[in-house]
Every structure is written in structure tokens, then in C-alpha cells.
């Protein structure tokens, strides 16, 4: 294990990307053929209403953060704890290789079964989870590793213990620090992008969304409850809120939509991962080539325009 860790820290990851030492043939700069199939294909890219997307984003068979880590990266070494209080199982993070490049990868983790969901607190991170994520991102900055985040949460955990340990401060601190982190950050919303709980891992150079994922200020139920005093009007709220991937692309909140098949599960996520692999390579080539000042200036401007 010590040897493994030492090897991972031996080179400069961003230099490796710039020198294309991770091998050729991954990034052609052209969109993957399947990515374009969406518009014409009956199987992919089906136009849905917002409420349908919400329901699909919450399906329990949907691939979770851990699935993307195992499909896209190799030699994942999980790191634990926030160094202050505990290890939050709702966020998984650590070191990995992306085609030979050391990266830091962090995912908001839902479970695949009820038991797993309980263990992972249904993907609702506590302050400890956000602090762990920040710790790993600062570590990535120190060692020049790009950061790739997978976002999938109904929202930050809002129980009493989370309030007591400063849930608001933990999220705020992440927004503050990520805005000027001197290493490339990519965030992919793979399911539910629940408000501040999602944003705390999505202050990134680029934010992508899976086709049927959603990203919103609040759940449609909460929105309907607060504005119309009737949570049963959630389907109506979903239409009004503009929370689908295509809404967010039109609003220029996100850069890319990743198409997904019907009945998307871990078993059929192969083509999605191919698209992601290619797109991540392009991302790394683009952003690892920038100096820290250009990188942070562009990131600031990205959010400044919203």
C-alpha cells in the first residue's frame, strides 16, 4: 500500500495530462457516436416531462456514485473521515487513476438496497461528509490532482445532529473554498441534485448532468408545500421549477447533458461510461492545460454570470 501511494504521488498529474503520458486514443475531441444518437433514436434521449425526470432520478435501480467510480477509474483507494468528528458514509472519496492519471474522485453515495441506503443515510450528507470532501479536494490541490465529483443527493441531511455540527457552515465553507481551488474540478450530477447539499460539491469548472437527473433549489414536494401549501402539487411544481437537464442547459447553468438509456441500471451503463470517459478526457486536456490564475478566473466568471 505504501508503494502504491508513493507511486501515485511520484509525478505531476497535470503535467502528465499536458504531455499526454496517459496514452492515446481516448479523447478524439469528437462527440461519441452514441452521444448524438439521442436526438434521432427512439431508445435514447426520449423527451420527458419534468415530473417523469424527477421520478427516474430517484429510481433505486439507477447507478449510484460507487458504480461510476468502479467503471471509470482504476485502483480506487478510499480515504475516510473529516479529521474532526467522523467518517460520513453518505460521501465516498479517495484517490484513483483515470487512464494512468492520478485523480481525486468524490461521490455522494446512495445505496442499492434499503439496508445500504440506511448505511449511507440515503445519500444525505452530514457536515462531516462535506468536510471530508473539502479535505480531499484541498489535498488534490496540493498535489495537482484534478477532482471529479459525482453528485446524487435529495439534499443535505437536516436532522438535529447536522444542525448542531454546523451543516450551514460546512456547505458555505465548501462554496467559499471551491470557488478558488487551484486544480480542475468537474462535477457530474448523476441523479438528484438536491439544493445546497449538491452545490457544495458542484462549484466546478464544468457541471454536467445525466439526461434524467434533476438539479433544483428544493424538491418539487418542498416547493409545492412552501409556495402553494400543498405538497401533492409536486408534479406541477416540477414543471415550473425548470429542474431538468435540458432546462438547466438552456439556462446555461450546466455545460453538458450525458444521454442515458431507458430503464438505466448498472447493467446497461456501459455506453454511458464510454461517453463519460471520452468527455472526461477532453475536460482534463482542456483544464489541466490552464495555469491556476486562468483556471480560477474562468471558474469565478462562470458563477459570476449566473
Amino acid at each position: 500500500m505504501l508503494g502504491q501511494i508513493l507511486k501515485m504521488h511520484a509525478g505531476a498529474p497535470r503535467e502528465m495530462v499536458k504531455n499526454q503520458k496517459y496514452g492515446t486514443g481516448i479523447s478524439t475531441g469528437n462527440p461519441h457516436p452514441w452521444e448524438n444518437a439521442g436526438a434521432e433514436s427512439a431508445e435514447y434521449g426520449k423527451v420527458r416531462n419534468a415530473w417523469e425526470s424527477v421520478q427516474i432520478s430517484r429510481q433505486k435501480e439507477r447507478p449510484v456514485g460507487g458504480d461510476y467510480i468502479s467503471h471509470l477509474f482504476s485502483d480506487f483507494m478510499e480515504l475516510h473521515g473529516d479529521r474532526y468528528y467522523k467518517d460520513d458514509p453518505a460521501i465516498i472519496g479517495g484517490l484513483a487513476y483515470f487512464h494512468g492519471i492520478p485523480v481525486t474522485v468524490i461521490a455522494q453515495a446512495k445505496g442499492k438496497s434499503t439496508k445500504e441506503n440506511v448505511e449511507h443515510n440515503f445519500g444525505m450528507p452530514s457536515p462531516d461528509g462535506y468536510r471530508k470532501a473539502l479535505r480531499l479536494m484541498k489535498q488534490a490541490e496540493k498535489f495537482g490532482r484534478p477532482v471529479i465529483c459525482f453528485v446524487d443527493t435529495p439534499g443535505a441531511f437536516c436532522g438535529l445532529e447536522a444542525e448542531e455540527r454546523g451543516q450551514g457552515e460546512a456547505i458555505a465553507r465548501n462554496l467559499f473554498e471551491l470557488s478558488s481551488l487551484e486544480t480542475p474540478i468537474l462535477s457530474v450530477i448523476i441523479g438528484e441534485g438536491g439544493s445546497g447539499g449538491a452545490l457544495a460539491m458542484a462549484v466546478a469548472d464544468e457541471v454536467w448532468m445525466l439526461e434524467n437527473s434533476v438539479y433544483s433549489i428544493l424538491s418539487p414536494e418542498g416547493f409545492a408545500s412552501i409556495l402553494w401549501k400543498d405538497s401533492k402539487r409536486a408534479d406541477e411544481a416540477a414543471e415550473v421549477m425548470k429542474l431538468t437537464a435540458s432546462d438547466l442547459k438552456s439556462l446555461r447553468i450546466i455545460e453538458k447533458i450525458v444521454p442515458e438509456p431507458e430503464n438505466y441500471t448498472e447493467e446497461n451503463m456501459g455506453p454511458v461510461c464510454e461517453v463519460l470517459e471520452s468527455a472526461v478526457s477532453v475536460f482534463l486536456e482542456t483544464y489541466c492545460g490552464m495555469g491556476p490564475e486562468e483556471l480560477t478566473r474562468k471558474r469565478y466568471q462562470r458563477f459570476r454570470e449566473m
Partner: protein
Amino acid sequence: MKLQNMFKKTNRRNRSTFSESRPEVPEGLLRKCNKCGAAIIAEDVREGNYICPKCHGYFRVHARRRIEMIADPDTFEEWDDELVTCNPLQFRGYEEKVAALQEKTGLKEAVVTGRAEIEGQPAVIGVCDGRFLMASMGEAVGEKITRAVERATREKLPVILFACSGGARMQEGIVSLMQMAKTSAALKRHSDAGQLYISVLTDPTTGGVTASFAMLGDIILAEPNALIGFAGPRGEASERLPAVGISSGAWFY
């Protein structure tokens, strides 16, 4: 007429006279304390710095009144007072609601920003006003705060923000969420420039405002017994939180 009715006591005449002559309280004479429910003479509230003389709870203060209270006389210069939302989600009924509040409060939006001097020390200040959609943060509030902080960074001034908010502005959806990132990023640049940011948490400070600029002060002050939290009383908390509030107290962070 029956014999018994001749001697029946009736107080009708007296009762009606009593109700006609009951004294009416002139409107605006009294204010009710939100904390203890006591009725306090409005004059006493103003003279007492908006602190309840019975329970010492803090009243919610209008933005311009708060600026009057803290800034040296005639030193406040307001910025960006014409900035308004453009209803980014085209939410029905929102523009009318905003227009009605603009009429009622005399404010264009839920925050007043500008430059002032406090005991001779210059500072950029931003004060939220709870009358305007619970001082919720939408694109206009986010933009005003961001511009104020950016200008403070350029002019090398400290920033003081008075937070009092129900959180993010629902009617602006995802655009409201992005204001959390935008304001936090501006404060990071201000901090990296070595400048001081004081955050003052008033009652209530919740939701997306707690999870962004409110909790990022180099020094955070809070009003005693202010409701400060992330979830907020009307959010989807999965547990019953104590009725007294998620967090309260006056302490210095």
C-alpha cells in the same frame, strides 16, 4: 305585559353604552414582541434600540432603520438601488408580488447595500429586510451583495452584512441556488485580499443564506435568541426540531 317582566333586570342599555365607549387603541401606538407576545408602546421600542423591555428579545428592524442606527449620520451612500429581478423562471404571479412589496416597503429588493462610516471607520454594508419576501435571496439580492463585496475588494474596505432571511427565493429556482455560490466566491476573493468580513446574524437566518454568506464571516455576531439554522422551520426536516428554534444565542464566533 307579564308581571314578572316588569321587574326583570336588563343591562342591555348599559352594556351597549359600555361597548360604544370602550377606548380604541390608535393604530401604530403599540407593537407586539414576537418573542414574548407583550404589547409594547412603539415609541419605547424605537427608543430602546428595538429591544423588548420585557424579555430583552430583539425586534426585526427594517433595513434603512438599521442603517440609520449603525452608520454615522449622513455617511451612508447607497449602491445599486435600482437593481431588480427579471423573473428568470417566468414564475406566474411573482412580478406582481414583487411590485406590491416595492410599493409597500419603498425598497426595490430585499437587501440595501452601500458604503458608510461607523465611528469614523469606512465599511461596505449590506442589510437584509425581512419585509421583502422574508429577505429571501434571489438574483437581485445575490447580485447586489456580490457587487458590494467586489467593490469592497477593489477599494480595500471591510464588509459587514446583516443577514435576516428565510433562505433562497423559491420563485427563482436554480438561479437562487447559484447566488449562494456567487456571493461565496466574491467573499473568497475579498478574504484573499486580506480584508475583514463581519457577518451579523439576526432573527431569522436560515436556509441558503446560512449555507452561504452568513456563515463565512471572519467574525460572526448573532442577536440573542435569533433563529439560526440550515433547515428552517418549514423545510423538510425529518425530525421534529425543538420549538424554541434550531439554534439560538448571542455568542461570538
